[in-house]
């Protein structure tokens, strides 16, 4: 039996290097000595969760439980725990630093934490409902942890190891640890939805024996955007053209009478869309489809804003189901019967998809072809007229690259006209940009007032964000928790997908998917766009046009 300490060491040494190869080597070294009986759990813990993806289980430990447990074990008050986590920027690191080392502890340390113990106790969390029960488990784990172990136990509980090792890195480490082929490891993991089972099979040389297992989230094949019109010409070699739907991307698994819908975030969203599940359940056979959940009205796709009202509701009311019906438009087929089709060409998969579609139960995305740029432009216009976002261009001979963004699929959506806006408030970003003032709230002009219209997170380089951060600190005029209100001076240009009426912002409008295009240091706040201009763009969108005006 191996100590959890060894995994924690492996993770720590992966965290302390920026080299991907070195990370892989550290993780591989942590995996190699594990016994067969604990290898699966070990590999899953290295990937940040005790659960396989197919289990769809969550530990649900909130900050309140975590901080109370930490307070009870470290002896520090909750406020100090919170301030420490903020100062360090990570709850796991902070609690690890607050935990007295073994020699400083008065109570005798029980047996060292084994991988099996951590696995069992973390799994137990998913079975407990009461906060007190969860707290008891977390306290037990912390009491038995060294500072280093506590660091990674808490990171696992708070949903991110943050050692710069994604699943692909763990797959690579498994390949390296057991002399397996990286592609085979990735395929096996994709098919069984369990990095643990994959690791064990890699050691036993039985990766090929892993068969596709339904009902676990599989990575989505992603398209890279076409940014400028010149690219269109060269992308004409991409063979087929489909509308790009404005909905929620989903994988639909169906076997027997069971249906599951997984979103891009790999969450199970089946319960939100009972009518889709019901319709798919009636389709004969076992299959896995890739497609889009859209709001549906009469015989066309309805706006995303209507769909939004259906999102996040676990059990939508009957009235809502009637008011905003939804539909599943399929555009790919990844499994039929027992046969995974990932490695087959788009054409073959399309053949299977059309065969399944004959039975009804879901809608089929129409396929077009374009001989030249003019034809493509005309397809784009009709897609927009149908209320869709733009076009997808796909290569006929391409396999389905789960979880990868490649050039075999391209997406083309023209941005609406951009707006020049002024930043009115800033706050710190998360993840890679934690600690940087990277989230901006911005406003348009309404006479001599500024009214907020949106908030954007990305688009500038780290360097720009840093430089602006210093400026924002100088022009801060007030603080509301994490938000700094700033004097309206910094002008930015934002692009967005579309515009809607909204009560969330003072302007009465909200931008969908706003992103910062560039800094407009040449502009003053007095020169930015007005609410009137926003209204103009909004009206053009209502007309079904592309909003490309001005």
């Amino acid at each position: 039996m191996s100590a959890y300490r060894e995994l924690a060491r492996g993770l720590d040494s992966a965290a302390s290097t920026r080299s991907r190869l070195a990370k892989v080597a550290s993780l591989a070294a942590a995996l190699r000595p594990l016994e067969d009986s604990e290898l699966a759990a070990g590999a899953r813990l290295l990937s940040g969760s005790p659960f396989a993806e197919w289990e769809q289980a969550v530990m649900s430990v909130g900050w309140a439980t975590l901080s109370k447990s930490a307070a009870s074990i470290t002896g520090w008050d909750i406020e100090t725990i919170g301030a420490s986590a903020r100062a360090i920027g990570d709850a796991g690191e902070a609690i690890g630093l607050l935990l007295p080392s073994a020699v400083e502890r008065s109570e005798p340390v029980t047996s060292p934490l084994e991988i099996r113990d951590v696995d069992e106790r973390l799994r137990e969390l998913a079975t407990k409902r009461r906060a007190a029960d969860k707290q008891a488990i977390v306290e037990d784990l912390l009491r038995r942890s060294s500072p280093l172990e506590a660091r990674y136990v808490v990171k696992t509980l708070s949903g991110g190891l943050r050692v710069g090792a994604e699943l692909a890195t763990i797959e690579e480490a498994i390949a390296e640890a057991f002399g397996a082929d990286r592609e085979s490891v990735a395929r096996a993991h994709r098919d069984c939805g369990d990095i643990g089972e994959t690791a064990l099979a890699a050691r036993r040389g039985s990766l090929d024996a892993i068969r596709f297992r339904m009902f676990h989230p599989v990575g989505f094949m992603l398209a890279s955007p076409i940014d400028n019109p010149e690219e269109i010409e060269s992308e004409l070699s991409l063979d087929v053209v489909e509308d790009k739907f404005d909905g929620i991307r989903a994988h639909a698994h169906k076997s027997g009478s069971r249906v599951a819908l997984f979103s891009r975030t790999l969450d199970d969203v089946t319960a939100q869309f009972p009518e889709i599940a019901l319709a798919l359940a009636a389709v004969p056979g076992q299959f896995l489809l890739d497609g889009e959940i859209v709001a549906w009205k009469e015989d066309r796709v309805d706006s995303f804003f209507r769909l939004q009202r259906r999102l996040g509701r676990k059990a939508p009311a009957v009235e809502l189901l009637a008011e905003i019906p939804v539909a599943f438009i399929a555009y790919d087929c990844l499994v039929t019967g027992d046969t995974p089709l990932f490695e087959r060409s788009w054409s073959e998969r399309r053949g299977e998809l059309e065969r399944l579609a004959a039975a009804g139960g879901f809608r089929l995305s129409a396929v077009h072809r374009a001989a030249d740029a003019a034809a493509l432009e005309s397809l784009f216009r009709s897609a927009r007229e149908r209320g869709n976002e733009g076009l997808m261009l796909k290569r006929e001979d391409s396999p389905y690259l789960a979880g990868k963004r490649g050039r075999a699929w391209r997406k083309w959506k023209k941005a609406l006209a951009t707006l020049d806006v002024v930043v009115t408030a800033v706050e710190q970003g998360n993840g890679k940009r934690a600690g940087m003032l990277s989230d901006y709230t911005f406003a348009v002009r309404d006479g001599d007032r500024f009214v907020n219209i949106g908030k954007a997170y990305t688009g500038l380089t780290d360097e720009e964000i840093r430089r602006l951060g210093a400026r924002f600190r100088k022009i801060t005029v007030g603080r509301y928790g994490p938000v700094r209100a700033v004097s309206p001076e910094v002008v930015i240009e934002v692009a967005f997908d579309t515009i809607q009426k909204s009560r969330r912002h003072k302007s009465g409008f909200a931008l969908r998917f706003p992103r910062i295009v560039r800094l407009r240091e040449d502009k003053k706040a007095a020169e930015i766009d007005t609410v009137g201009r926003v209204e103009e763009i909004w009206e053009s969108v209502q007309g079904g046009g592309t909003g490309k005006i001005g």
Partner: protein
Amino acid sequence: MTDTAAPHLFSREEGLFLPAFQAWIDPPAPAPRAILSHGHADHAAAGHGEIWASPETLSIYRIRHPEWRGTARALAWEENVAGEGVGLALHRAGHILGAAQIRVEGPEGSTLYTGDFRRSESRTTRPAAAPRADVLVMESTFGLPVFRFPPRSESEARLVAECRRAGEEGAVAIVLAYALGKSQDAVLALTEAGIPTVLHGAAWKILPAYEEAGFSFPLSRPYASGPAQAGEVLVVPPNCIRTPVVRKIRKRRILYLSGWAMREASRAEFDADVLLPISDHADFDELLAHVSDVAPAGIRTHHGYARDLARILSRGGRKAEPLSEGGERAREDAEDTDMPAPKRDGGQEAEPEP
């Protein structure tokens, strides 16, 4: 607005004031008479009329402000200065060369203002003294229990080993360290190990003050004499990380020397390969030890986690509260409270000057 911060010490909009001496402590704006705890720019502003400070701090101030024409009054350690029935003396603060704590004593009682301080010793500083006082006005930059630094000797050994390893791999080790204090200490550790260093201009120009104090830098040269070669260690302030000085070195190994290196997040902020929690400030344990040795009846905390440390001390049965003062607020605002790493630790450096 005036608030009695401690015996004989007042907190005013413009900063801390000693009425008995008509003197301001570390005033952020030009003052007729300033008592400077040390030479970092956020404590030693330009343009004062008269300056009282340790001889080392005066040397540093003159190097950094060659245009200064005011009157200097050098105070020896623990030399008593009398004014209107109140006595004043400087005590060692550790921190950096010349850094002083300021103690006043009179009919109202005694006050010890720590300025920035460190109780452990470094190559260029002796430990902070701990004279008794009724009220302790103490910095709390690292006033949370997550900030406990490993022994300096251990971190210095790692510094030397990592720099040596970089050299052996044909890479240039880049040490990110504040120009005044941290840089000179790092250079002395490397010099002792026989490793040559190339110094950023801001750190290089301070060397005469260190040489005056008896330190020598035989293996160092300024960056102005040419970029660092493999085998040499480049010592620059952290804010150089995004400049060509660092960027144009292809094969590099970056070491970040700061108390903030306790945060794993600083690895990304500074592209650091190695995080070395070496600080010129007291860590949490040293703050508590200082309270215990000075044995004050009351404590006023300021800088950094003032509120948190005051709460922690209060829960421990001490009478403690954060100090609020105009000058203090101005300084806290200028500081980078969200991403503390590049600034707080005496991050006074102007734009990098290669």
